[in-house]
């Protein structure tokens, strides 16, 4: 019974649903297309409920951590999450209160997220400064030269150094970097195809333990 519930049933549903959606794309048959669209609609609804579930699970986990030492961050997280929820629900239910949600988003969430994102520049600068502190390999030197070329080549520096750097950056971006990126994209595409086939055949079961 345990095996039926945990493995056989989820695998059957996943494989059957995946095959129906795939056949709906491959075969131009109206019934299959309608079944495909209906299954996709179900997936969207399930994903929406998964977000709600994840929100309450986050509150549950951090309510437990809030009682432990260093739980002040969990308390802040719970308060901000509940504030966002209340303001959003209020804006939906009472349109006249929508300005509260806009204010919260513009003057709290946006500056905080932008600040955290801005720290990335500082961290990258420190990492670039210490690049050769621990490793002195050929790959590190190539990375160092490429980073300098791209950084300086992006800048609209005055000619002739600016033009020379811009051309070097353009070549670097269009030839070696593009080749590597295309290889990455092809590899990712093949990997996605392989993962899809494994899920369809039941070899991979990310939906069960």
């Amino acid at each position, binding site marked *: 019974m345990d095996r039926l519930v945990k493995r056989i049933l989820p695998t059957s549903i996943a494989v059957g649903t995946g095959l129906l959606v795939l056949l709906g794309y491959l075969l131009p048959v109206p019934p299959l297309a309608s079944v495909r669209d209906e299954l996709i609609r179900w997936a*969207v609804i399930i994903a929406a409920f998964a977000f709600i579930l994840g929100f309450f699970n986050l509150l549950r986990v951090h309510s437990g951590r809030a009682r432990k030492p260093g739980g002040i961050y969990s308390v802040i997280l719970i308060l901000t999450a509940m504030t966002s929820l209340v303001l959003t629900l209020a804006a939906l239910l009472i349109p006249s209160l929508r300005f509260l*949600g806009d204010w919260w988003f513009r003057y709290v969430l946006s500056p905080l997220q932008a600040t955290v994102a801005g720290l990335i*520049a500082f961290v990258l600068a420190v990492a670039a400064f210490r690049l050769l502190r621990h490793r002195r390999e050929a790959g590190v030197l190539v990375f160092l030269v490429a980073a*300098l070329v791209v*950084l300086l080549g992006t800048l609209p520096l005055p000619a002739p150094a600016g033009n020379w750097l811009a051309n070097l950056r353009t070549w670097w971006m269009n030839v070696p970097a593009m080749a590597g990126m295309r290889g990455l994209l092809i590899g990712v595409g093949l990997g996605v195809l392989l993962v899809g086939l494994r899920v369809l055949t039941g070899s991979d079961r990310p939906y069960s333990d």
Partner: protein
Amino acid sequence: MIYCPKCGTANRQGSKFCNECGAPLPATGLRCPMCGAMNPAGNLYCDRCSARLIPAERVPPEEEKPERPSPPKGISLPSVPLGEEEWLSELRAEALDLAPEEEAPGWPGELEAPGEPPTPEAAIPEWLAELEETVPEAPPPAEKPTPPLAGIPVPPSGEIPEWLRDVEFAPPIQEEPSAQPPPVAEVDVHAGMPSASTTVPPILIEGEEEILSTAPAEIPDWLKEAPAEAPPEYGGLVPAEIPEWLRPLQPREGVAVEEEPTETEGFLSGLRGLLPIGKGLDMPATAQPLLPRAPRPAAVARAELLQGLLSRPLITPPTAEIREAPRQSGWVLTRFLVGVILLAAILLPMLVRLPLFGPPTAPTAEALFATVNHLPGNTPVLIAWEYGPAESDEMDRVAGPLIEHLLRREARLIVVSTRMEGPAAAEALLASRLVDPSERSRRIANLGYLPGQAAGVREALGNLGGRTEAMTGLPASQLDIMADVHSIADVGMVVILAAQPDDLKTWLEQISVANPNVPVVAGVSARIELISTPYLAAGQLRGMVAGLTGGAVYERQLDTGWGREYEYYLTSIGMAQLAIAALTVIGALIFLVGGRKR
């Protein structure tokens, strides 16, 4: 007990399956050949069907036979002792009362020598009389087969079958006349009954005395050739000839058999014929002493040191002050200097106008501007708003001029997002770029968040008219700008505003399946410009604005009046890039000259 071979649980003798784990238990008894039931060892008859378990040729010897009386022929008794039925006990008691031990039944008397007066019929109990009828009477002497002897008159030829006429009569057996012949038979009617065993005197056939007293007849020739007397030790059997290869095993007379020693100790005590302990068998041939005879000097020194340490008196060590590890002041200073340099590089262009950089160039942005510029008026444009507040500082400068250009072209903007903060971020930028807020409902429809990642995108592309406007809560079908827009097939252009590579890929993949003919353009962050370029080269993207530089170029093309802001941003970012490049070079030189730290 039968121990389960799987779990080791002790089960009752005769069990077929383990009481603990249900595993089949090994059969230790006898399997009935008729019904297949298992019977305990020693059973002669099956407990279930009473069939015989051991062949008749293999009847156990006399001492192993059960003490119970053997059943009559054709009847098998179960091995399980049966309790005596009540009716049988009463019947037995009645019989004992009616037939005391001194009164022997009359029917055995008939087996005694003739001439004695028979016991009166009234003395026989009724049950015994019935039993008497079932017991066959002793055969009459006349019916006893007698060997054909010489001198006996041959019966008339009419009574002898024709095939017997030519048969020669058997030779006479020379037999000494015995005054007391052996008993003919012993009858044991039932155990527990009054002793009925009676020694029956020999019954002589009429005229036999005359026959026995007759002189011996002549022995035929074929009988004379036989040995006069069989060897007594073989019971009348002629010994077979032992083959040649068996003769060495034949015990020899006069050679004393040496008795094998008996083990007297250990768990094998009492057994004979064990292998004696021979030299070299009791210990390995290459046995080495476990320890050297003399300890090594180093080991002695260590032992003495340890002994000395242990013999010292205990001294409480002084409490050592735990000092914090010295901070890496150089590392802190490095981070501080990097932070100060970056901050100065970013803020300085806002304070002082630095003519360091020339006008930015972005050919892809110029191409996109041309594409949008040729867009027909009132065209529905689907905008995938895939960035949030964290990326809005850069992406707002990328998306702003593009959105304003679309609004100028009288395009109808339909906004969706797979990120939860996307609709709010879109609303903030749209409000800043829309000249007349009263025209919002006529120009913009924010259809909100699409859950489900790729599935949500696929579902939205096929059902745009079925969604709800996020700001007003009205169904999209009731909006004027959505009157003729039901799916991706009704859209004139798609604009993807993405700060992450996965968002761009998701939208491109789903649009290429839903409607590959719709033109798609993108505004992306500088971070994913490299990943977006292959799509642009492959034609999946008709145009692209990448990063702040692309936004500045588009802004310059559009001439919206936001040029001063872009100049600040570009100069600040350029100075920061220069600072980072300089720090990278300085750091590389320092660590190349100063050596590598571990």
